[in-house]
């Protein structure tokens, strides 16, 4: 079982990101369970959503305390919430930022976790570019597909279009594809560095 925890703020589509990830896994024939942290979400408040992916039926219903991967939709949360809590030593981290780990004061993470599994992607910028709106959720799901290799970009695009039919879906899918490519390139650079 692969477990993903997504941190963001109310209004950034955190819950929808987990749902899209689950749909993408479903499209690939896997079992997936996405659920929110059940808060009374308000715009701007810290929000957590979860997604489990497995080959077999998923029975467990507890929140994910020890994720295999983290997606952080808003880097300002890093100073407010212990987003790295419980992350497995071989875990993946994808953070929405145009800056580097060092610039964000996260240099020590590079020591604790596997370097090639820690990446930044400027998801809000990509969303602005392709959608005209600063909603980074679908973009990050695209980036996560590249980082983890868990799901294909095609499945992500199909999941996005299922959630957002029409132009909104096209824009989000394009932004997700851009993030996918960017993350793939970055991952290669890190591996060869």
């Amino acid at each position: 079982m692969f477990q993903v925890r997504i941190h963001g703020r109310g209004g950034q589509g955190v819950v929808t990101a987990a749902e899209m990830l689950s749909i993408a896994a479903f499209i690939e024939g896997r079992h997936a369970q996405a659920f929110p942290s059940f808060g009374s979400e308000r715009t701007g408040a810290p929000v957590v959503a979860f997604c489990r992916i497995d080959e077999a039926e998923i029975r467990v219903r507890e929140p994910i305390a020890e994720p295999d991967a983290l997606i952080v939709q808003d880097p300002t949360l890093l100073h407010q919430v212990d987003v790295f809590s419980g992350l497995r030593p071989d875990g993946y981290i994808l953070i929405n930022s145009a800056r580097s780990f060092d610039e964000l004061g996260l240099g020590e993470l590079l020591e604790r976790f596997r370097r090639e599994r820690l990446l930044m992607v400027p998801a809000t910028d990509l969303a602005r570019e392709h959608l005209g709106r600063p909603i980074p959720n679908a973009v990050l799901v695209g980036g996560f597909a590249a980082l983890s290799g868990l799901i294909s970009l095609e499945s992500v695009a199909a999941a996005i279009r299922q959630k957002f039919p029409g132009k909104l879906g096209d824009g989000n899918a394009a932004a997700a594809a851009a993030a996918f490519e960017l993350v793939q390139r970055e991952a290669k650079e890190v591996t060869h560095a």
Partner: protein
Amino acid sequence: MLEQKEGSHAVADAVALCRPEVICAYPISPQTHIVEALSDKVRTGELTPCEYVSVESEFAAMSVAIGASATGARAYTATASQGLLFMCEALYNASGLGLPIVMTLANRAIGSPINIWNDHSDSMSQRDSGWIQLYAETNQEALDLHIQAYRLAEELSLPVMVCMDGFILTHAYERVDVPAQEQVDAFLPPYEPRQVLDPSEPVTIGAMVGPEAFFEVRYLMHAKQMQALDHVPQIAADFKEAFGRDSGGLIRSYRADDAETVIVGLGSVLGTIEEVVDELRDQGVKIGVVGITCFRPYPLDEVREALGHAQRVVVLEKAFAVGVGGIVGQNVRLALSGLPPTVYDVVAGLGGRPITKRSLRAMLADALEDRLGRQTFLDLDLEIVERELRRLQQKRRSGPHAENMIRDIGIVAARSH
């Protein structure tokens, strides 16, 4: 067709497939997505003929359902928590009149203090209201139980409450198999009311009944609920034949046949318990689970049969009777009277506190050594409670409980994290 969707939407699909003619609801978290989806289906004409009545309260929602059902319409509503309490008086009318209304209850805690998260305090508070109560373990089962519920309700002319854990199921995206309309039509015949308000054949429904017959009319409700003990497994068997899935029934056993320790639970927590049971089985512990799907009527004989051979039974429940203790626990003891198993009550998950595998493992380790108290409140921070009790002793105007205790937890959290 297999679909990845939210539990609320899966239930809305199931309800629509049952062709309700009147839907009346007042939105309340975590039920809202169900009735929103249904109102969309009515508005777009996907569900037709059907009248969607937006009411001003839950009391009105149940009253409209009663009126609709009495005039021969298949009626549906849904609620949660305070909404269920607000319709309470009408609940008893629906069951007393014998009207086959189906209602989804998106299980949520009851205030005060106000809390929107999941537990079973709401449905358990109405366990004796005369409604049949079915509890879903998964979103697939929630979907399936609604289809079964209409058949059950209409065969017996009794209302059925389908309970599904709020947020944990209603807001979870997972795989569900949504049946085709023809399959549901073949399983669920059109509603033929046993009593109907019809101007061409006028009758009254709901007459005043004095001491000469009240007892008998009330007893009839009990007699019909007891008949449901035969209907529920039969409908589940028919459902399996038609749809190829195990859903519903009275109780469900998992690795419990040779178990010395059996955990009893209701609803979505069963999956997490099963995971822990599998771990313990791998370690050679003879342990199993019995899920109670149909809590009202209470399947006393089946529970007795499923648990009687065990050494100990751990009843894990998301509600409790203040001043007594476990509610399901009392019912399990009733089924086991005169039989050897020790029954432990474990109250867990109130107001949305997560029930984790870690806590279940620790609790079961105590149970296996018979170190568990007769009554356990899983992950309860007793120190916070005791602090407030001390405050009550020390000072007359000790202030509001919830606010005091939240402040204490804030201090504790700042210190320990």
